[in-house]
């Protein structure tokens, strides 16, 4: 019988040993296309870039599975992730869409799964499933995705896409949104998601887990704690909205390079900070040390060339004041190059052109050159949005100092404190704003608003910060998907949700090769869970003799005495039986002669 038991245990251990080191998350892509379309398109295709499909439909399937595998092998969940996907004939230039299907809040986890980490906070479906340990809605998908069957994506799996758009990179990006890289805020109004009625119950607007880590460094408020108005204002604070999650911040040094092109107001404090800017394709590019100086408004004649005194379209009338400083000029009427040339002629060391009223809602434009004036310009210039230009203009009375340079002390895509910046352009781009990394990031990141051509298929450092962000929002590493995060798991690669640990050492029973820590490996141990009380006891009598060191069989003295007691011996049988055990123990050096006598005394008095 003991042999059978050992065999059974051996089988169990063998199964444990065979368990995968990295469980990942199973992703099921539900092919939602009909016959002969999309994923089922029978058009013949030559295998490309490691994609072995021989039809267009099969190549799409391989690409989808490849992208899903990258995420599936990176994130851990014991709940399958379902993606309903299709390729449909969308319009030209419309490539597809994807996102989370459902959101959940205030869900408890099936122990030891932790459930939601923040109350009254929305989680996307797949993450809610992972943290709950169960499928929150078995009738719904987690992600819905559709892509254009008209567009000529690169379908290879090797990222060698040339001028084509890499479908795998697109899929990684869009699945990333569906897995949690997005908030559920209306960035125009600042409103959170909610306003639910369920019969007479009303559920107010509530924040989401992404917003719990979105910080505006202007007012040092998290988006989860802001009013609608504060969120709407924050959404357009370029360079001042950052991610506070520790995993992303830890990844910044290994992913982002030093050298951030910055237009920065240094003083006064009220408007200090980095500003969204448009670069010029003429003059000296922004560099290091760049330029630093006082900002002064240019004044020129209001005439037919330029109808206002702020447009800089004619030679400046305050050239003496402008000399050696950075000229602030309003956009409009004449070209960018003429304005900057006039600033240069006035002796300015640089120029800032801010949007005019006609472009009040426009982003800071890129400034194109022209073949006549452009080549004559040597100074550095940038454009600003109108709100930013007016903010600077409003402070000029007290003096404004600014710099235009590549700041070698700041990583491109991070703030001065080393936190990753989120995309917060003016004007607001709902959906794009905040739910992406900033476009200034370098190296380019998977979750920037655009799919850049130099992306690899990596989602983790040192190439990418997407996985760290997933970690921050709650995708904790859990290789055995038992609900206990690897860092806290006493068997990180063997599922043991109960964390049972018989001997109290650093390894749980599920992975401990010596569960009772008696020095005899479990596979050779007649009782892997020996009675390991520190001293030998018989009834209420504590002998004080040590019990922890086992016989070569793996049984402790107490094990053997317990077995003897289980036979209901009479007094004489007990004493003689104990004597056999303890004599053997003494002979093996497990106890001393006096300790043997102490155990004998307990038996004799029982």
């Amino acid at each position, binding site marked *: 019988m*003991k042999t059978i038991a050992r065999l059974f245990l051996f089988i169990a251990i063998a199964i444990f040993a065979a368990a995968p080191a990295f469980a990942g998350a199973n992703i099921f892509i539900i092919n939602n296309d009909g016959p002969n379309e999309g994923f089922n398109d029978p058009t013949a295709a030559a295998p490309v870039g490691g994609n072995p499909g021989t039809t267009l439909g099969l190549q799409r399937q391989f690409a989808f599975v490849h992208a899903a595998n990258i995420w599936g092998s990176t994130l851990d969940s014991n709940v399958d992730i379902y993606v309903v996907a299709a390729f449909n004939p969308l319009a030209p230039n419309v490539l597809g869409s994807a996102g989370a299907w*459902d959101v959940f809040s205030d869900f408890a986890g099936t122990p030891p799964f932790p459930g939601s980490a923040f109350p009254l906070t929305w989680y996307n479906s797949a993450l809610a499933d992972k943290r709950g340990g169960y499928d929150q809605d078995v009738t719904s998908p987690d992600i819905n995705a559709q892509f254009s069957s008209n567009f000529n994506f690169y379908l290879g799996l090797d990222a060698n896409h040339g001028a084509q758009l890499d479908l795998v990179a697109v899929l990684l990006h869009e699945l990333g949104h569906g897995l949690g890289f997005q908030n559920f805020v209306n960035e125009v109004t600042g409103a959170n998601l909610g306003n639910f009625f369920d019969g007479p119950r009303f559920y107010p607007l509530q924040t989401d887990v992404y917003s719990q880590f979105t910080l505006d460094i202007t007012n040092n408020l998290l988006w989860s704690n802001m009013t609608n108005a504060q969120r709407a204002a924050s959404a357009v604070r370029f360079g001042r909205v950052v991610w506070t999650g520790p995993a992303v911040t830890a990844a910044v040094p290994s992913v982002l390079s030093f050298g951030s092109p910055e237009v920065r107001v240094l003083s006064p404090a009220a408007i200090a900070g980095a500003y969204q800017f448009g670069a010029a394709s003429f003059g000296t590019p922004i560099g290091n040390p760049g330029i630093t100086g006082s900002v002064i408004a240019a004044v020129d004649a209001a005439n037919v060339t330029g109808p206002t005194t702020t447009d800089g379209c004619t030679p400046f009338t305050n050239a003496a004041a402008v000399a050696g400083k950075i000229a602030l000029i309003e956009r409009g009427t004449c070209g960018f190059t003429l304005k900057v040339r006039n600033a240069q002629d006035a002796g300015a060391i640089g120029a800032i052109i801010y949007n005019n009223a006609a472009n009040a809602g426009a982003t800071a434009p890129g400034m194109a050159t022209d073949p006549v004036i452009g080549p004559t310009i040597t100074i550095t210039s940038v454009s600003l949005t109108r709100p930013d230009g007016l903010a600077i203009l409003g402070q000029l009375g007290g003096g404004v100092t600014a710099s235009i340079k590549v700041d070698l002390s700041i990583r491109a895509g991070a703030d001065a404190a080393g936190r990753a910046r989120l995309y917060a352009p003016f004007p607001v781009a709902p959906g794009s704003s905040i739910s992406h990394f900033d476009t200034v990031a370098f190296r380019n990141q998977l979750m920037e608003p655009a799919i850049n051509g130099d992306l690899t298929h990596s989602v983790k450092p040192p190439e990418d910060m997407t996985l760290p962000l997933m970690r921050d929002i709650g995708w904790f590493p859990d290789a055995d998907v038992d609900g206990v995060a690897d860092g806290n798991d006493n068997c990180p690669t063997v599922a043991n949700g109960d964390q049972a640990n018989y001997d109290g050492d650093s390894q749980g029973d599920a992975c401990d090769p010596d569960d009772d820590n008696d020095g005899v490996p479990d596979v050779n141990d007649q009782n892997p869970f020996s009675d390991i009380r520190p001293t030998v006891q018989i009834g209420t009598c504590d002998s004080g003799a040590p019990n922890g060191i086992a016989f070569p069989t793996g049984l402790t003295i107490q094990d053997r005495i*317990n077995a003897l007691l289980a036979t209901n011996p009479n007094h004489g049988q007990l004493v003689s039986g104990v004597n056999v055990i303890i004599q053997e123990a003494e002979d093996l050096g497990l106890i001393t002669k006096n300790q043997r006598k102490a155990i004998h005394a307990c038996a004799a008095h029982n």
Partner: protein
Amino acid sequence: MIRRVLELCAVAVCSALLGAQAYAGAKMISGSPRAEKVNAANASRRIAAQSAPREKWTGTKAIIFDAETKSLRKPTAVEVAQMVQSLRQLTTRPARISPKIAANGVQQGDISGAFAQVLVARARPDGSVETKCVQTFDEAAEFLGLEPEAAQ
């Protein structure tokens, strides 16, 4: 003791079988009932987009690479209409979020993918494309240079 060992073994085996959810890799499947909600929502959006008042939009930017001329051109009126319809369909949000409150108090917001990101592209002169991930029709239209005819 043997029974205890056997019990422990049984638990261990069951735990292993239940808990060791081996990463099986992504899989394509078909015919899942989970797709039904998506199809219903897509149909609803398609109908809403098709029944909306016909909008007159114009393409103001050369965003399409013409393979024959190897140059950029503006979208035709037909292409613009197709873009508007696709974008309306993809960016239409439900007027009201359907709530569900589970018996255990869990709140579910059935957003039916309403916060889906939409990827749009415009061609560069070399035939490559510049993309942008957007969520609203207006943002997509701005990126693609689509303007309502009244604004011309």
